[in-house]
């Protein structure tokens, strides 16, 4: 048989009675057994209502899990891990590795299959609404619609000293080939750096008559960023300044939904590019008549 091992028939319970292609149209290959499903064909017909993980057999629900138990490695530990994953609702649970960590702990790597599905049509992810304007168009937009430079103040606040995200958006160098806000002729960008107290940030923003405040929060262990971001919103409200500005937060664990919930206008997660932030600020300033 010249076919690769991939052409081996799958156990009957893993195959689906979907449309199949026999492979007979591939020159020089023998026809594959008829019950093999062609992933290309399956992809075309994929179900958006019942979505489940895909390992190597369409819709197999395969999931990998790893964790540590306060149990030494051994048959009992292995069985404990298996039962635990079975209780999580997984079928066909296999403990594929266990490693003793000493001191009565062991790590397990486990595979299981889930019957659960999600309905994509019911999923709605809140996102800030704006059109992304690239560098030239953004500058043009600010000149035409606002008629003066936008003042943007950015900082890592509280005890956070990780400026990588802030710098990616603010610094001239920028991120992924997109220069940061400092490089836009129509934006006056002030990067206040790390560990800026909320008081200092509010004072500086009011001093500069900022149009937008950008707050980066990278350290989010034990949700330290939540009280810090909330406090900023409260301070701005107390100063009567909240409605005068576009307030944005960003960071690896920040979502737009969370940001809005905390009283921000937008939240940007990892991978956000400077023109996206600039576009949101400019369009929000125009939309709210802050110019």
């Amino acid at each position, binding site marked *: 048989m010249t076919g690769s091992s991939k052409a081996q028939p799958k156990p009957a319970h893993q195959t689906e009675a979907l449309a199949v292609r026999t492979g007979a149209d591939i020159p020089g290959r023998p026809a594959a057994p008829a019950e093999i499903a062609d992933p290309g064909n399956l992809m075309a017909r994929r179900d958006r209502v019942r979505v489940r993980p895909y390992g190597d057999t369409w819709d197999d629900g395969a999931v990998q899990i790893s*964790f540590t138990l306060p149990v030494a490695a051994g048959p009992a530990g292995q069985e404990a891990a298996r039962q635990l994953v079975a209780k999580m609702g997984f079928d066909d649970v296999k403990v594929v590795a266990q*490693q003793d*960590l000493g001191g009565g702990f062991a790590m397990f790597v486990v595979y299981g299959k889930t019957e659960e599905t999600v309905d994509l049509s019911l999923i709605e992810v809140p996102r800030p609404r704006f059109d992304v304007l690239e560098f030239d168009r953004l500058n043009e937009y600010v000149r035409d619609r606002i008629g003066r430079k936008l003042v943007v103040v950015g900082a890592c606040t*509280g005890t956070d000293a990780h400026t*990588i995200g802030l710098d990616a958006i603010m610094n001239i160098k920028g991120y992924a080939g997109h220069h940061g806000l400092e490089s836009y002729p129509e934006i006056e960008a002030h990067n206040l750096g790390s560990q800026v107290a909320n008081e200092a940030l509010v004072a500086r923003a009011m001093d500069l008559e900022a149009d937008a405040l950008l707050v980066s929060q990278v350290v989010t*262990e034990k949700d330290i960023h939540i009280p810090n971001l909330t406090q900023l919103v409260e301070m701005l409200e107390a100063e009567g300044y909240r409605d005068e500005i576009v307030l944005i937060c960003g960071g690896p664990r920040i979502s737009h939904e969370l940001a809005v919930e905390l009283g921000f206008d937008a939240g940007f997660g990892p991978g956000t590019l400077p023109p996206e932030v600039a576009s949101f600020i400019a369009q929000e300033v125009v939309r709210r008549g802050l110019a």
Partner: protein
Amino acid sequence: MSLQIEVDQKQVQRARQAAGRITREIQDYIDRHTTDTIERTVARFFGIDGTDGEGVPLPNIVVDNIHRSGQLGRGAALLIGRAMAYHDLDAQEVAEAVSRGAVDLGKVPARFEDEGREIAAKLAAEATATATARRREREAWLKRCPSGPPPLLYVIVATGNIYEDVIQAQSAARQGADIVAVIRTTGQSLLDYVPYGVVGGGFGGTYATQEHFRIMRRALDEVSAETGRYIRLVNYCSGLCMPEIAAMGALERLDMMLNDAMYGVLFRDINMRRTFVDQFLSRVVNAYAGVIINTGEDNYMTTSDPVQHGHTVLASQFINEAFAGRAGLQPWQIGLGHVFCMDPALPDGLLYDLAQAALTRAVFPDCTLKYMPQTRYKTGDIFASYAIDVLHNLTSVTTGQNITLLGMLTEAIHTPYLQDRYLAVANARYVLRAAGHLGSELVVRPDGRIAARARQVLDGAVAMLDQVDKAGLIAALEQGLFAGIRRRRDAGKGGEGVVERRPDYFNPILDRMLAENRVAVNGGDPE
């Protein structure tokens, strides 16, 4: 033997001379000033510990009292000793009396000053004897339980709860980690006091307290005895309490301290004069206690571009080395930090990293090099992260680094889980086993990419040090020459804690330690 790289010794010499001049100017300033935390360090060495009813540490109560009297420039040693003589109390009793408002240290008759100096000198002798005893204990441990071949494997624990840290640290040590650092809670560096006792509630780390040092030391000694390998303990001499933490480490046998001459200025916005003055005494104490310091140049690469600014790391290492030497640290005690930091998307990124690591090895042959893992380009993809750490470990072993801080596959997600540390140790041990002699088998082409990159970095460092030498270090920091961060000389936290020494300034701890540090120029390497 590790991967050898040719360096232009004339350039290295030029850099070292520039660093010597750059630090001399600052040292003149250091030698004319003291700070709140320096004087609290003296109080701690004199045995003053604990807190008042409201949780304020007694060393703070004592030094604040002296500061308010306007006599801090004479040194806490004199004022504490004087009060001990006048009131016939021991140091702790004096501190407690000050906290009750029963004693005002500024108001003790001058006739008790000679006796006060004598008492203080005696307390200093006892304190340094204790620090020496701790150092001898470590040497004995190392004889009994020697370390394996380099690089030593360094892991962190950071649960926020010292008892949880113990579980994590002991597990890591049993799996093969040689060094355990207890990361401090975010923001402790900005506290102008050291918390007391057992304190929970840290985030991203655990409060550094003397009691925590004691608890972790005991836990690691237990595993040292069990495994036959001495497990080293690390904490942070940085922030607003650099010398106090050094004192606590000297008294509790910590083995290493994060201790950079400029880190606080750049990354914590601490006043530069405060940091320069503080780092000096902290390093004098670390030198005396046989502690290996770890500098923080790796942090530069979290804010500036590694390709463009690799030379700033080397330049800063020369400056850190020069400051360290002035405090009496021997080369083996100078753990210079650098980092495996190239963007994984960069073609030949590994070559850049090999070049800088081999260059650092060649330029600082006798220093203890600490090689830090990639963190900048880790996103949460644990699988990619684990692959990156393989190359970090490969570079570390190939270029003869002394310490390798292990990358965590869950970097950028959470502080390490028990299993994350195991996987990191397993990764490192595999690479060390498989590639132990790779560096000594390979020859770097003199006309190749690695050699060219190393020359570029060294030349860049020399040019930068020339520039700093011309401008002065303070002006260079104001211009943002390091890590692209600008700091003004009078701004930053803690500047109000710097006080000019008076002609009769008295600090018997500093005097004793510095005198002995200088004597021990070639001695003391327990390794």
